[in-house]
């Protein structure tokens, strides 16, 4: 065992980095991209739900939606602060984009990033009222929990620690969604509307897991920024979702 090794080899063996000074350029680029994607998705997600507060059918639902907006924005802020340690202009970043901007409901963008931000493609589609928003929250929430759990293992320790703090709160957002959906499916008309929304959102959320056989995955794995491939995470989501939808009589 030699006393030193290259950072690339250290990362390949599962090493952990602790400050921007340690990060080689490629690593820096990828970890920033990962953070930008998370921040933009949280901000875009929160912006979408902000409008839904007024569609909420009761006080409990209004509070739940407002809480989701608040906490997702807070999560974005925490990760943005880490971006700041890499030199990003945090203040400007937080307002540099219209986070509530959406494409048309029938736009077909696959998994492609759009415009000047890094949000997951699913956050470019507009919500259509309360039931639709609850369905997206449940479907995307379950995906977020799986994607975030993957990210709690990232090799950049300050970021991994934040993801570990965030994970239970994101899981709670999903639980709030499931509660709301349970009430929605009690009424046959709403249940049918929910079923239609599931049909709309399911492929779009699935696309957020990225491409199967991704070439970027291998590179990210070498850097310790990913540990399980896109298809494994997607498959876990499909299975968990099938169980949840069956329990809600939405299959």
């Amino acid at each position, binding site marked *: *065992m*030699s*006393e*030193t*090794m290259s*950072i690339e*080899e*250290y990362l390949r*063996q*599962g*090493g*952990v*980095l*602790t*400050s921007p*000074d*340690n990060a080689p*350029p490629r690593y*820096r*680029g*990828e970890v*920033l*991209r990962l953070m*930008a994607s998370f921040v933009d998705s949280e901000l875009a997600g929160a912006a979408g739900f902000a409008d839904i507060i007024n569609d909420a059918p009761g006080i409990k639902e209004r509070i739940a939606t407002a809480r989701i907006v608040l906490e997702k924005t807070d999560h974005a802020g925490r990760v943005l602060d880490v*971006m700041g*340690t*890499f*030199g*990003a*202009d945090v203040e*400007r*970043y937080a307002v*540099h*984009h219209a986070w509530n901007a959406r494409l048309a409901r029938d736009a077909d963008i696959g998994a*492609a*990033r759009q415009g*000047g*931000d*890094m949000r997951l493609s699913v956050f470019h589609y507009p919500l259509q009222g309360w039931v639709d928003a609850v369905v997206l929250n449940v479907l995307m929430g379950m995906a977020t929990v799986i994607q975030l759990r993957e990210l*709690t*293992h990232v090799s950049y*320790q*300050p970021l*991994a*620690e934040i993801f*570990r703090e965030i994970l239970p709160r994101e899981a709670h957002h999903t639980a709030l969604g499931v509660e709301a959906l349970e009430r929605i499916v009690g009424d046959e008309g709403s249940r049918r509307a929910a079923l239609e929304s599931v049909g709309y959102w399911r492929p779009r959320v699935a696309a957020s897991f990225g491409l199967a056989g991704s070439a970027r995955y291998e590179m990210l794995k070498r850097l310790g920024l990913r540990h399980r491939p896109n298809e494994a995470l997607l498959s876990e989501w499909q299975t968990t979702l099938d169980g949840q939808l069956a329990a809600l009589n939405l299959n």
Partner: protein
Amino acid sequence: MARFHSLQVTEIRQDTRDAVVVTLTPQEQDRGIFDFTQGQYLTFRRSFDGEELRRSYSICSGRHEGTLRVGIKRVEGGCFSTWANEELRVGDTMEAMPPMGAFFTPIEPEAAKNYLAFAGGSGVTPILSIIKTTLASEPRSHFTLVYANRQIGSIMFREELDDLKNIYLGRLAILHVLESESQDIDLFAGRVDAEKCTALFKHWIDIEAADMAFICGPEPMMLAVAAALRGHGMRDEQIKFELFASSQPGRARRKAESVAAAERGIACEATVTLDGATRVFSMPKQGQSLLEAALENRMDAPYACKAGVCSTCRAKVLEGEAEMEVNHALEDYEVRQGYVLTCQSYPLSDRIVVSYDQ
């Protein structure tokens, strides 16, 4: 953005043959800024032959001590550490950013925890700060330090650690592992690797009782210790790392070559449109990105990461040509359409027309 502040050198103590401990005093108005947390580091800057170098060194004092001290070990060929060891004098000033780093866990005065720490060489510096702060502020907690060095003469803070053992009788255990000196017990000779950890966990360290572990040292040691801790049941959130900063040769910033470029007459006339307004200015072809040139010409150009990552600084080249050094954000089709990341783009042509509005 973090700023640099002046600190006065008020004491320099030779700790080992090639390491000094430097006491620094902030200016009155900066005292709050330098109120550090145990385990944090300071980033210094200094110009050597016209080139700015930045180096980070860990704070070795405890929070309760009321002083700011860093340990600086001379690295072979290291410009900054050699200067600090040989030329730095009491009364000099050093420029540092506010304390940074997250190599700590919150202090809980009521807690009765068992902490482990693994230090290699000067990696002990932040760990000393953590040990002192924790023993002083968590009276019921215990610390065990496994400290790897080449030989007795290279052990940093040897006396101070011995004193701490006496002050906090029974609460601090130190296991020295020396690489090139024979020891009475074989266990304490050689390197701290996976095998050594397993042996230590068998007879000397109750790994199951450990609440938290701190590791700071060279990469192979960090990997070996982390793997051994995980193998003995510790979870990721119970292991705190600090990559041995002084083993990382810092990267010098890309040198600005604008003067040389102008002398060689290889400037570019840039026409940049932003928010409907167009400005024309001259910029060097090398040493300054399109984004930096726009900002310098007081254009409020959007940017975020400046690493070619977030694509916030995206603009379209309408005429002329630019070379993008790094692109982690734009898709191929966008590049074909003429989009560039301005933070990464340098003009190749004598004239370039760029728009942030498209």
